[in-house]
């Protein structure tokens, strides 16, 4: 029987002796280049968003006094989310999912069959893995229990942006804010009829976020939008597929939440 430890150690010693890495200065330089590359991608995305939203902003000013059911006819196309397939899609995905599961167990009544990961997707721009998990309301229940987590795409480290908390299914739109290293996040539950959620920032372009379809038993859908750190969301509005306004509310950054949600 071969000695696995001995031969693995021999391989490791040989690799350490003969391996040739460019050194710490090269690692630092490569790290800086990577950071600049990511910043460049973010800047390019922002430039496109700015170009799109400058036209949209003008249109919204003109339509703000219209009744709630008035169509907004020319909203820009929604960005596509990079949904991950079957869980776990990677070691990071697995680590993040286990953290989510631990949280979901705190839902009232514990985690039952059917309570699980609602969706997981990645954001290449922000190097984040986003998860929404929860427990559908039981028959007759009027609250849905859910949590959102934003994790590091590479190692799954991170935190739950929103610990589980049951929310009334009657609320058509909620929004919470979170800020981590290199990103800000706005997320919430939204009426099943919603198709997009529009986030307006102070002195920044508009961000349109696609609504994430949860299974029917959840009775609500969800959304998560990531944005550059330092941006200050001031208003969140949900639209249906015909671009009719369903609900909206104003953000109070001082409390990191939307005290006036649901909107008027």
């Amino acid at each position, binding site marked *: 029987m071969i000695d696995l430890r001995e031969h*693995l150690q021999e391989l*490791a010693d040989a690799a*350490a002796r003969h391996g040739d890495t460019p050194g710490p200065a090269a690692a630092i330089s490569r*790290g800086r280049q990577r950071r600049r590359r990511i910043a460049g991608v973010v800047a390019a995305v922002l430039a496109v968003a700015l170009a799109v939203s400058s036209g949209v902003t003008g249109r919204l000013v003109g339509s703000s006094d219209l009744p709630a059911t008035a169509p907004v006819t020319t909203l820009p196309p929604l960005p596509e989310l990079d949904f991950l397939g079957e869980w776990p899609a990677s070691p990071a*995905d697995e680590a993040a999912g286990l953290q989510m599961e631990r949280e979901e167990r705190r839902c009232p009544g514990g985690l039952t069959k059917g309570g699980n990961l609602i969706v997981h997707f990645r954001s290449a721009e922000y190097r984040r893995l986003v998860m929404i998990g929860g427990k559908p309301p039981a028959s007759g229940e009027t609250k849905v229990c859910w949590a959102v987590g934003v994790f590091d795409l590479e190692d799954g480290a991170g935190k739950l942006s929103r610990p589980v908390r049951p929310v009334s299914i009657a609320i058509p739109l909620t929004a919470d804010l979170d800020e981590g290293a290199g990103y800000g996040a706005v997320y919430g539950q939204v009426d099943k009829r919603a198709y997009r959620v529009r986030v307006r920032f102070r002195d920044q372009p508009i961000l349109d976020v696609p609504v994430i379809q949860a299974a029917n038993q959840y009775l609500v859908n969800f959304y998560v939008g990531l944005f550059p750190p330092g941006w200050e969301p001031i208003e969140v509005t949900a639209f249906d597929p015909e671009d009719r306004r369903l609900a909206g509310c104003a953000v109070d950054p001082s409390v990191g939440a939307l005290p006036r949600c649901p909107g008027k």
Partner: protein
Amino acid sequence: MADSEGFEEFYTGTVGRLLGQLFPVTGDLHEAEEVVQEAFSRASTRWRRLRDYDAPEAWVRRVAMNLAADRHRRHHRQIAALHRAGPPPSVPPVSVEALALVHALGTLPIRQRQAIVLHYLVDLPVEEVAATLGTRSGTVKSWLARGRRTLAARLGEPEEVGNAP
């Protein structure tokens, strides 16, 4: 304090060890060099935070392991094709037995390979292997058992190689 203060010392003190740990996982020295260097480059951008960790080396190892797994998944078909048609992977001079082990490890799924290296080479207990790979201890035990069985078969051994965890 400069953002990179202490990074050079950390790099110099750990790069050889990490390279040695990643080589049996990748089976190719150049590939191991690449993932280790990339992991260090990522560590450099967050060194201000990492240097306060109890074991920043464990963070770099975990990132390097993840990178190795990602690259394996993304490119395994192309790499397999290249290996069939092109030069053999870069391997430092080792004994015949160790060389056979490199080839046998290469036939294991990447997660089994990682578990075996972390447990038998890095000497991590099963629980820490599980934490590093982001999975459960039971899964790691299963990977280790299956990995040992496959290695034994590949190496022509009558029973499992190594010792059970």
